[in-house]
């Protein structure tokens, strides 16, 4: 078990290091430069060159990389040369927004998908099961930005129940925080719930055909208890895999939702930084997103070993 964990963690560290190089190199090939964007439509070439020197953009690439990654490792993402403010607080503030939205929608999606998916599997040859399957099929087909626009139309502009946009930190007022959270979380969760429902359904269906479940029934357990005691844990493995992958997708999908609802999350910061050619900020945000995704994979891998003793033993 320990070897399995150490191996996975080492793999994580190596991948992250490699990713930092890739991220840095990619930033170098983006067209357009920060000095030029800062000086705008009336800049002279001399002024641009002088500003580049001030930003340190004329140093060798390897020096720029080392000074950047050195800072990142100590939690200092540097100072943006566009906003002239430190980047770490920007990342710290925006990551909270994104994580709250993403985790809340994943929780909501699971809360909907697990009971619905199980019901769809158990009742797969009854009308209820068929209706759930059909509805989830439709849910998958709706892009989340469309779900977002429809939600705004109906619940914000139509009924006036929730604000159409904006963000309020929980400290500034919990009611306002929840009120502004409902629509973006629902928009993200709808599609996720639909996807996960289908996975839960097929996982449970699979498990229901397993020998061990028949054995449990043969020993006298009622169908429901057999499924809860022996079936769900087995069905959980594919669902955890999918949920892990989906969580990574959500993190990225939140970019669009943040734009629609004008949330100050990582996606919004990323889009803004890219259009301002604020490369140091882009690097920082992309790096944090990469690490988050890798971390998610690590957690999913470790969860397998908790859920399934065979994974532990194999390692």
């Amino acid at each position: 078990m320990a070897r399995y964990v150490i191996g996975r963690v080492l793999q994580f560290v190596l991948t992250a290091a490699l990713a930092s190089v890739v991220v840095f190199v990619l930033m170098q090939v983006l067209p357009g430069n920060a000095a030029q964007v800062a000086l705008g439509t009336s800049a002279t070439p001399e002024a641009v060159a002088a500003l580049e020197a001030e930003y340190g953009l004329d140093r060798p690439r390897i020096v720029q990389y080392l000074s950047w990654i050195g800072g990142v490792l100590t939690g200092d993402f540097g100072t943006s040369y566009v906003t002239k403010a430190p980047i770490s607080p920007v990342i710290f503030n925006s990551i909270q927004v994104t994580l709250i939205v993403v985790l809340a929608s994943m929780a909501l999606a699971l809360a909907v998908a697990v009971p619905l998916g199980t019901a769809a599997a158990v009742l797969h040859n009854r009308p209820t099961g068929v209706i759930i399957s059909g509805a989830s099929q439709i849910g998958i087909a709706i892009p989340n930005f469309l779900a977002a626009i429809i939600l705004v139309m109906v619940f914000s502009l139509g009924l006036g129940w929730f604000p159409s946009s904006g963000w309020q930190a929980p400290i500034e007022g919990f009611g306002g925080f929840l009120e502004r959270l409902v629509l973006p979380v629902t928009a993200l969760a709808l599609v996720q719930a639909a996807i996960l429902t289908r996975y839960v359904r097929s996982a449970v269906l699979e498990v229901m055909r397993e020998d061990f479940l028949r054995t449990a029934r043969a020993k006298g357990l009622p169908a429901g208890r057999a499924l809860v005691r022996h079936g769900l844990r087995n069905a959980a493995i594919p669902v955890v895999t999918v949920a892990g992958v989906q969580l990574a997708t959500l993190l990225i999908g939140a970019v669009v939702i943040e734009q629609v609802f004008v949330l100050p999350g990582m996606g919004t910061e990323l889009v803004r930084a890219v259009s301002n050619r604020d490369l140091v900020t882009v690097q920082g945000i992309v790096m944090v997103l990469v690490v988050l995704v890798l971390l998610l994979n690590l957690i999913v891998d470790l969860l397998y070993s908790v859920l399934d003793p065979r994974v532990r033993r194999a390692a």
Partner: protein
Amino acid sequence: MGFRRISGFTAAVAALALTITGCSAGAESSAGEGGDSARTDLVVAHTAEPVNLDFTTTAGAAIPQALMENVYESLVRIDQSGELQPALAKSWEISDDRTTYTFELQDGVTFSNGDEFSSSDVKFSYDRVTSDEWQNTLKSKMEIIDSIETPDETTVEITLQRPSNSWLFDLASLVGAVFSEDAVDDLANQAIGTGPFSISDYTRGQRIVFASRDDYWGEAPALEQVTFQYFKDSVAAANALRSGEVDVLGNLQAPELAGEFESGEDFQVLEGTANGEVVLSMNNAEGVFADQTAREAVLYAIDEQTILDTAWGGYGTLIGGMVPPTDPYYEDLTGVWEHDVDKAKELVAEAGIEGEEIRFAVPSLPYATAIADIVVSQLEAAGLQPKIETQEFPAVWLDKTFTNHDYDMSVINHVEARDILTVFGEGSYTGYDHTRIEDIAQQADEGSEEEYVSGMQEVARTITEDAAAGFAFLFPNLIVAKAGVQGLPENFVSDSFPIHALAWG
């Protein structure tokens, strides 16, 4: 291509959204109206957000729009009709040789950090503009200054190297902002000025909150707090107005949404003028359009009225030249190049450019992409073959088109006030032969007021007659607000979006 389909679809959904809500908005506001008139705060939505608060080192219209006249003041300002008015200077006198300006300053002015304002702050600020501390290239407007003297606390004498008709007007722009010597260390994050408001909260990319100052030297503003809320997307901003989260849309960038607000009594739509000329620029120096016949073919081929109606819902004004009607030297040039497809075809044949590829660099901005589609179809009708190359704005467009002049044709809104000499001057991306206007412009600036007007008219006419560029239309300043909001700056003729006069009626 795929992109365009999505945005069309989004617009359709948004339009649907607005129709659906038409009824409910009415029901809400009857209750809300009474509450609004007692309010002392107001929220204005803007779509262009400042990246920081320092216009001395950062270009772009969003920063002065928020700060000039509201936080920072100059000696003079431009009012809504485009006229000069006193600001920090009570009055001024100009010497007979028209090079020395003697300003008498207001008394009892303080900065928002408590510092006293005096003539030395003016000298400090204006000396600083021409130093290396300023990186914004608009600083060149102050290079004409020869010396600045401060005979006493409330008098400033500025001597120019030569007479200039445009300098005092330039002084009303951001280069004239007066700073306190102790408060320039962190301009990107802290703005300390003499204006009626100070910044009480600044969350980058989201909002700026302005609080009115009790110790302001002039008439106190009606509102205690004004918030600028920034939206990337016009539809989101319009939604926020509909659902009551904002009270004013500062400059609507989606004219198709304006119609929905015009019907009904809950909102007011103001269409004012601005300084933005939407220029259909052509590379005069290189490639297909180095040949004047080829450029003339384009000007005959395009139909500005159709462009305006289709791309921008008919909001805006046809100008035919680089000068907006609010400038003293405006002249109607729309008749110089009539829309004439047959003539255009003839000239295309004469220039021998039929079927030749024309690289049309289109910045990724809503108005630019909308205009480009129509221009392409009009040029194709005349036998030209423009090929749209969409460039991300600002980064890619600034790099390829504006700086490296690697394009044949482009379309961009030039928003700066009185920018005709920059856009068609030396080194500009238009590649226009600036020697054709240089001497006329110099003489006009040094001459009498009448000579200035007639000289600059000649400059503008020369540029239009040389077919240096197409002028699609003058960009409108569209403001949408709740019906109860008063004192809105209908025209955007200076750098600023002044909030001093805003009030609830």
